[in-house]
């Protein structure tokens, strides 16, 4: 029961914090220099990790689908199916898990250190709003950089799937790529990108909130880092379900068919 109350408490705090960030952003836009600095830092830090993760996720999906398609004798569809599944579901989820370990942990450790060494209070003493000066640029920067990284990971996943489709399923590159447009509609890619954006927003919100609300010295920073990774993953999974569900309803409205 106490566990449940803790979860609700965290959720409420995160949502209030999100509201605060949005209102701060509408009051006054953050300096572009700070935002670009954050984007550069995050991207340079995690680009290789993300690309590698994306490559292997694509490879895994390709192998699995090749096994299934051999039963149906529909190996021609392998490229389209594996790419579609990676774009719509598995790719964003797993790559976002990766990013939550890297970007989220890094940012919350940085902000937590600022908090426990009283640098945030120092900013407030100087008459500046810490939300404006510290949190807002990071928030925007992490959203943009994560979105870019997730997109890069998805593009890498196509290459991974191609390679393994050739090695394992015997589908050569040209055939693999030729069947992608037959199955992967623009709406599929759009839904994948919407998912990526939602995950980026979740990641940015949770890690800034956890870092900003750190208490209790160096040990508190460690606790904040661990809880950031876990909370982000839970929120990402719930968000995944939410976007999928809404996307389904949206598609039904657009196309006018009942599934």
């Amino acid at each position: 029961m106490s566990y449940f109350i803790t979860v609700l408490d965290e959720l409420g705090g995160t949502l209030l914090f999100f509201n605060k960030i949005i209102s701060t952003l509408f009051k006054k836009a953050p300096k572009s220099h700070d935002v670009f600095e954050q984007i550069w830092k995050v991207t340079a830090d995690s680009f290789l990790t993300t690309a590698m993760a994306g490559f292997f996720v694509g490879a895994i999906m390709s192998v699995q689908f090749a096994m299934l398609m051999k039963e149906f004798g529909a190996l021609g569809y392998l490229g389209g199916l594996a790419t579609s599944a990676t774009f719509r579901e598995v790719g964003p989820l797993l790559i976002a898990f990766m990013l939550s370990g890297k970007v989220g942990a890094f940012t919350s450790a940085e902000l937590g250190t600022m908090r426990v060494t009283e640098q945030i209070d120092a900013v407030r003493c100087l008459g500046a709003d810490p939300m404006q000066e510290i949190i807002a640029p990071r928030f925007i920067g992490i959203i943009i950089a994560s979105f870019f990284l997730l997109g890069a990971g998805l593009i890498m996943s196509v290459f991974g799937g191609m390679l393994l489709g050739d090695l394992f399923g015997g589908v050569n590159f040209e055939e693999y790529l030729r069947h992608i447009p037959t199955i992967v509609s623009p709406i599929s890619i759009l839904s994948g990108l919407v998912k990526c954006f939602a995950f980026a927003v979740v990641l940015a919100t949770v890690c800034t909130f956890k870092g900003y609300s750190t208490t209790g010295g160096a040990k508190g920073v460690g606790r904040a880092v661990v809880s950031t990774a876990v909370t982000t993953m839970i929120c990402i999974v719930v968000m995944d379900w939410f976007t999928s569900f809404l996307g389904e309803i949206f598609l039904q409205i657009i196309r006018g068919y009942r599934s």
Partner: protein
Amino acid sequence: MISLLADTFFGLFAPPFRRREFLQQLYFVANRSLIIIVFCVSFAAIVTILESSFHMKMVIQNDSMVPGFAAVLILRELAAVVMALLLASRVGAGYASEVGSMQITEQIDALKMLGIDPVNYLVVPRFLACVLGATILTVVANMSCLFSAMLVSQSLLGYTPGMFIASMHRFIQFRDIIFAMIKGACFGGVIPIVACYFGFNCQQGAEGVGRATTNTVVVASIAIIVIDFILSYTFSHLY
């Protein structure tokens, strides 16, 4: 890291065997992560079955295979990988910060002075507990996945549980869950090795512990995905 793995394997058969420590670690790994893992994996399974129904309608007009298709994906990939990534972020980070703070407060040097092998004392119980715990958690995650997929397929897609199970029978044999357990055991073995490696090589100061923790989560996650790929490739020759 490889040498640490080898030391751990030799330490498995070297006395003293610390049973109580092992049980404590097992409680930490398995019991404390159970709720989170079941929750996350169920949501992931719900999304998977929705998406796979969409795909099968597009490619093959016969949609009686959707549950089987989703169940194959869940059993072979999804449950084990999501479980392992959650464990890596939770357990791995915990172990890395624990061992790292022991390193910077010189407790590990003290152990060496007392003639106790730190690998045998610290790594071996954690390794065993993680392997066993991850194996058990994989089975639990798979079952909760299939159950939630069944619920959703009844409420949203209109398959009764009977249809679901009949369609599963076409695709799934008992060996699938055995392979999933092997995967889970391998993932569980990776996590404490990586965490303790970064903990032993921790730099001085609080910043070093933070860096060790972050590195652990990233390296363990990458290692899990790579190992998953290798194992998938290996098992695919056995079907």
